[in-house]
């Protein structure tokens, strides 16, 4: 019914965009053709850019009456075969948790961007990383989730594209945990050539030659092939504890364990494939700075200064993926160090899984908090020098 104007996605080459715009463009390049959103600072620009661009490429945009409606609309869009996204900030993110939980249980691909701002409550409209635990544990119930942490305008494009690919590949909601810093900054973005961009689409039962009569909506594979509405598969999406065929009548605890464990393992057993980290200067280091998101930008600056001007043998690790947490990957590469510093725009959240992973590799883990604004290199460096004095 609508043209799919792939000729009108962002062309290859250099662009100068706001992180928000890059995010919306990454989604469109990935094939997102449905956006449902609600205004909230500092995420509104993503929505406005999507409203502007989606009809150009043959997609549809709607501003819903609230965040719960926005997230819920993504479910229907995804089940009807579209790649769908919304962007919100921290208060809206809290509202979406029931839908996220439901999406996990029904194994529905969708992308939610959280441009974090300080809380609790209205907090303020500046930058923050205070939702990183909510990303993993905010949904009720078990199951796992994927959450990425961009640090640049380029990342806002690349990671959004990747978020869609991951959601289609693993049949799961994927979160992009951005911050006001990276959403509002303008930087150069380089879009690769068409053949360099990989797009992943969900596997459908017809791709595997599975006929409607033998289709099991939650079966066949660790990541079940997903039938789309309107193709004759009579697929019932249910979030009550279910059998692989979607049956909810015969409850027993072993079905329950199998149903929910598989969803959990689907992500957690594949951390090595899913999670990405970046490391620098690990060779011969005595201390370690672990960052994620925008703070990584300050982090690199601080580490360079620490090494070059203060002779501190400090290494740098950036978590590009917050969840599933790359515990094994970290343990595989991090040597014995004295102090691990974790600067966060919160009072210390990711420091917990980091500590859990590396407690026996270090003397201590030290949080360096900054609330409401990006750490300056001085803030991080002064704290490091203070602790190491």
């Amino acid at each position: 019914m609508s043209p799919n104007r792939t000729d009108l996605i962002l062309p290859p080459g250099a662009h100068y965009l706001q992180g928000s715009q890059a995010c919306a463009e990454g989604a469109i390049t990935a094939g997102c053709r449905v956006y449902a959103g609600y205004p909230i600072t500092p995420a509104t620009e993503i929505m406005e850019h999507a409203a502007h661009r989606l009809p150009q490429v043959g997609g549809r945009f709607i501003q819903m009456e609230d965040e719960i409606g926005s997230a819920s609309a993504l479910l229907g869009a995804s089940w009807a075969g579209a790649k769908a996204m919304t962007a919100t900030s921290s208060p809206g993110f809290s509202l979406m948790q029931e839908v996220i939980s439901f999406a996990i249980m029904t194994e529905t691909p969708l992308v939610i961007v959280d441009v974090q701002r300080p809380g609790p409550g209205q907090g303020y409209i500046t930058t923050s990383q205070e939702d990183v635990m909510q990303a993993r544990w905010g949904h009720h119930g078990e199951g796992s989730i994927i959450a990425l942490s961009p640090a640049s305008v380029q990342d806002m494009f690349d990671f959004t594209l990747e978020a869609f690919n991951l959601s289609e590949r693993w049949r799961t909601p994927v979160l992009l945990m951005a911050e006001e810093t990276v959403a509002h900054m303008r930087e150069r973005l380089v879009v690769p050539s068409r053949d360099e961009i990989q797009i992943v689409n969900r596997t459908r039962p017809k791709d595997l030659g599975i006929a409607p009569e033998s289709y099991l909506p939650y079966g066949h594979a660790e990541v079940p092939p997903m039938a789309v509405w309107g193709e004759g598969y009579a697929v019932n999406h249910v979030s009550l504890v279910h059998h692989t065929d979607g049956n909810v009548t015969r409850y027993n605890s072993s079905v329950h364990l199998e149903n929910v464990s598989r969803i959990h393992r689907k992500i957690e057993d594949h951390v090595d494939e899913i999670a990405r980290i970046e490391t620098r200067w690990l060779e011969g280091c005595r201390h370690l700075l672990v960052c994620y998101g925008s703070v990584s930008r300050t982090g690199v600056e601080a580490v360079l200064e620490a090494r070059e001007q203060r002779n501190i043998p400090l290494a740098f690790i950036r978590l590009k993926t917050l969840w599933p947490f790359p515990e094994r990957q970290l343990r595989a590469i991090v040597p014995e160090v004295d102090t691990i510093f974790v600067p966060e725009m919160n009072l210390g959240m990711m420091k917990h899984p980091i500590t859990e992973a590396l407690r026996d590799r270090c003397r201590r883990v030290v949080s360096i908090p900054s609330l409401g604004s990006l750490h300056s290199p001085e803030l991080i460096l002064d704290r490091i020098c203070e602790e190491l004095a």
Partner: protein
Amino acid sequence: MKKHPMLKYLKEEAPAGPRLPLIMCPGCGAGQVLNYALHAVDTLIREDGLRKEDFVFISGVGCSSRLASHYLNFDSGWTLHGRALAVATGALLANPGLKVIVLTGDGDAAAIGGNHFIHACRRNLNMTILCINNGLYGMTGGQVAPTTPIGRTTTTTPYGNVEEEFDLCRLAQTAGAAYVARWSTAHPHQTIKTIIKGIRKKGTAFVEILSQCPVHLKTAPAEMFRDLKKNTVPLKKAGKSEAKGRIPVGVFCDIDKPDWVTRYQEIIGRLERVESTHE
């Protein structure tokens, strides 16, 4: 034994075991509504050349919403309490060709789902909303709902309800739905005809179906059924003196206006012709 004619639209068995019977209480009206809806769909398949795969049933949570679950031999989504209409909105944006039927209850649509309800009606998206109104929260044990009459005793109004009830049809009409009607489980033929018209209608069709909950209202189903007939009055007689105290049933409005997707498609069409100058 002859099989029920609508059984072809249900999934009886599946690898993990039988899916029927429905979990509804004996005498519940919800099963009847499903029956009427399936008759309507059956007619559309035979008369309008529609196919089974064109239809999708979306529900929220509650007794009414249980109808769109794993025993439907259609594409379906048994979603979140109050959110069925938002889910349906997204589905239509992705595939406007789907014939979307939303199964919801009075609590699901008018309490927790109230906001999505008024906006779905206002947007005039091409969907048919079947709201099974039993005047209480059935699944959770009989609590008061926005549709419970004033004075009624429920588990959360043990001394009598102090609130007035919604007129859901008036609400839908005011919110902008193109087609608004009310019947009851005791009006099978009218209900089926109205559902057919609603699905054929371009835009939001809201059909409220008054339904009996014999368990929580502690009244025999047959008596409730008779009461539904007795306490309702067809619209054209609603002004007469005999109508006092009775609930009007019938079609309240039937307007022709473009639906949401049609309006949005005009934008897409316009943009197609213009060379894109996005930044």
